[in-house]
């Protein structure tokens, strides 16, 4: 019996080897060549559409399964409920009282605060912003399967096939592409760095950067839709965007050329940073320099003043938020006094959650998760440039930009400071609540005292 297998054995190995090589080469050609020229075959969009149909089918089956067992399919609530404008304090209290009675103090007013308090105990808006967004449907990834336990055998089989495809095929492909992209970036930017400064160098540097970022985009199977490209950031300005994950950089940089800002890292990141800065001026800070706000501001202003340098890309939130809201923008970048080009980035969570919970996952873990998701689908909106107005201070300007970004991206505009992930709340917010409530009452007591 065994003697029959031997010749087949080597034949099979050879066939497998050949088919793998051919497959990979084809794919690399289909992916890298378009990346170089910035064109797309539309394969990814087709992929995205078929995935959506698949997920809808899977959810329907689960609902059916749940109904059969006569239980309610527990749908974690979609972002829509919290993102809507909360009913104002005045309105709520008036609703609660005997339908539109005089705005006097009512003992039941305490219910409003009580309810809000208990709501926050059950589900904290702020903590919620920092955990991954919950989904209405299941996207066949175990990591998003928080509460779905009505899964039939058919679905399990489908999930199994999904795992095979994602880890056996997509992941190796993507990792290869990622290494290619990064490797090319380092090598080519170093080569471009050898050229003398001038228009040729800038042109080449732009092309090289764009090409490598596009390869990285394909390495993540990111399907990006850019809106309003006429507002793309120009030289001598700052590009400001909301921050969900480190991938944001790749997404923006694959469509335009930016000067990056960041801390100098060691290891692989350091190599990349040093190579990039040879081709065009990026701003890398030493760890010690980061604390010195004046130094930071000066370097940024100097860069902007030079019109031949690329627009700076900054994420003012300072930390990753889970892409359902835009947290407080730090005012530093808004004090510089130049044009700000706001950009809103919104990820579609159905395909793979791009949010990086830095307290839970390290960077490598995160990247692996990203590369073993189905895809990363996001939309980028370029907003028209804004400048600080007369009599507006940096904080107000920052808030204005933040509100514009939140509105465009359909994200909730929260007052909260992103640093709240690890910080304390200011007494100011409590006072604001008291102010709102007193407005409901004080009006009435003034009337009473007059009469």
């Amino acid at each position, binding site marked *: 019996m065994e003697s029959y297998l031997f010749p087949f054995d080597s034949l099979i190995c050879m066939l497998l080897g050949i088919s793998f090589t051919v497959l990979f080469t084809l794919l690399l050609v289909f992916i890298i060549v378009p990346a170089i020229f910035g064109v797309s075959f539309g394969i990814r969009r087709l992929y995205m559409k078929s995935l959506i149909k698949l997920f809808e089918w899977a959810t329907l089956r689960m609902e059916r399964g749940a109904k059969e067992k006569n239980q*309610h399919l527990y749908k974690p609530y979609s972002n829509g409920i919290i993102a809507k404008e909360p009913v104002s304090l005045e309105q709520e209290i008036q609703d*609660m009282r005997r339908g539109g009675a005089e705005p006097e103090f009512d003992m039941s007013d305490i*219910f409003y*605060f*009580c309810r809000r*308090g*208990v709501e926050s*105990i*059950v589900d904290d808006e702020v903590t919620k912003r920092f955990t991954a967004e919950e989904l209405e449907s299941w996207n066949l990834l175990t990591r998003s399967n928080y509460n779905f336990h009505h899964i039939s055998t058919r679905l399990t089989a489908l999930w199994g096939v999904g795992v095979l495809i994602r880890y056996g095929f997509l992941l190796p492909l993507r990792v290869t592409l990622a290494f290619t992209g990064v490797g090319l970036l380092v090598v080519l930017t170093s080569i471009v760095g050898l050229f003398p400064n001038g228009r040729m160098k800038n042109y080449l540097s732009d092309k090289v950067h764009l090409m490598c970022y596009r390869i990285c985009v394909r390495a993540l199977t990111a399907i990006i839709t850019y809106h309003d490209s006429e507002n793309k950031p120009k030289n001598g300005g700052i590009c400001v965007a909301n921050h969900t994950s480190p991938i944001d950089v790749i997404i923006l940089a694959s469509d335009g050329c930016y000067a990056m800002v960041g801390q100098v890292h060691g290891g692989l990141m350091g190599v990349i940073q040093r190579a990039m800065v040879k081709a065009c001026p990026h701003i890398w800070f030493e760890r010690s320099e980061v604390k010195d706000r004046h130094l930071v501001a000066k370097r940024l202003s100097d860069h902007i003043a030079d019109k031949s340098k690329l627009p700076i890309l900054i994420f003012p939130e300072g930390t990753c938020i889970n892409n359902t809201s835009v947290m407080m923008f730090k005012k530093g970048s808004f004090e510089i006094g130049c044009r700000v080009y706001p950009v809103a980035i919104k990820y579609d969570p159905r395909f793979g959650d791009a949010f990086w919970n830095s307290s839970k996952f390290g960077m490598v873990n995160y990247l692996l998760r990203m590369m073993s998701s189905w895809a990363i689908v996001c939309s980028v909106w370029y907003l028209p440039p804004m400048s600080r107005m007369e009599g507006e201070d940096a904080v107000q300007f920052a808030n204005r930009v933040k509100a514009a970004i939140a509105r465009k991206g359909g994200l909730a505009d929260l007052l909260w400071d992103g640093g709240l992930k690890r910080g304390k709340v200011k007494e100011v917010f409590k006072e604001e609540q*008291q102010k709102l409530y007193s407005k409901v009452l004080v009006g009435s007591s003034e009337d009473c005292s007059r009469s």
Partner: protein
Amino acid sequence: MGSTSSTLLKIPNVEVLMQETGFSPAHIIRLHDRFKALDKKGRGHLCPQDFGAIKELAMNPIGDRIIGAFFSPGKETVDFHTFVKILAHFRPVDKNRPKEPNSPEPINSRSNKLRFAFQLYDQDKDGKISRDELLKVLRAMLGMQVTEEQLESIADRTIQEADLDRDDAISFEEFRKVSPEILHSRCFIKAPVIMLMERDC
């Protein structure tokens, strides 16, 4: 994929808990996850500081009182069962509840909701809201936005309206009469876990 039932098994006496509070298994799990998230040190119970770490609660004018409602007098910790039982007050009223004469009143009945709110006022638990206690709540809700005289006049007026037996304090029965009927249907929280209950009943 089987994860739900295993989580439920980890919670002791979960059947009793579900029966007493009326929460479904999915809700219990959701609350358990929340409990674990709040219990940052993983001790299996919560202390007042864990509640204090919730930013929205910290900025709530009566946040301390709400936290206090979770801890029985003398106790410094609250376990999962107590946590869920207190939150059960905020489930919407079961409109179609059959009236069994011998069963205890459900935690989320109209009466118990009012009692919860009453206890937020009545911190010394003597069964009456004194003028002082009312003033304290008013101060918490209004802060520096109104003068002391205005606060006192509001308190006086409220007691005047509500106090029927003229003992200068508001008892639970008087509190009940003063609270609007519509209130009972509003005393539920819009948080997702609980909102789903509306579809059930």
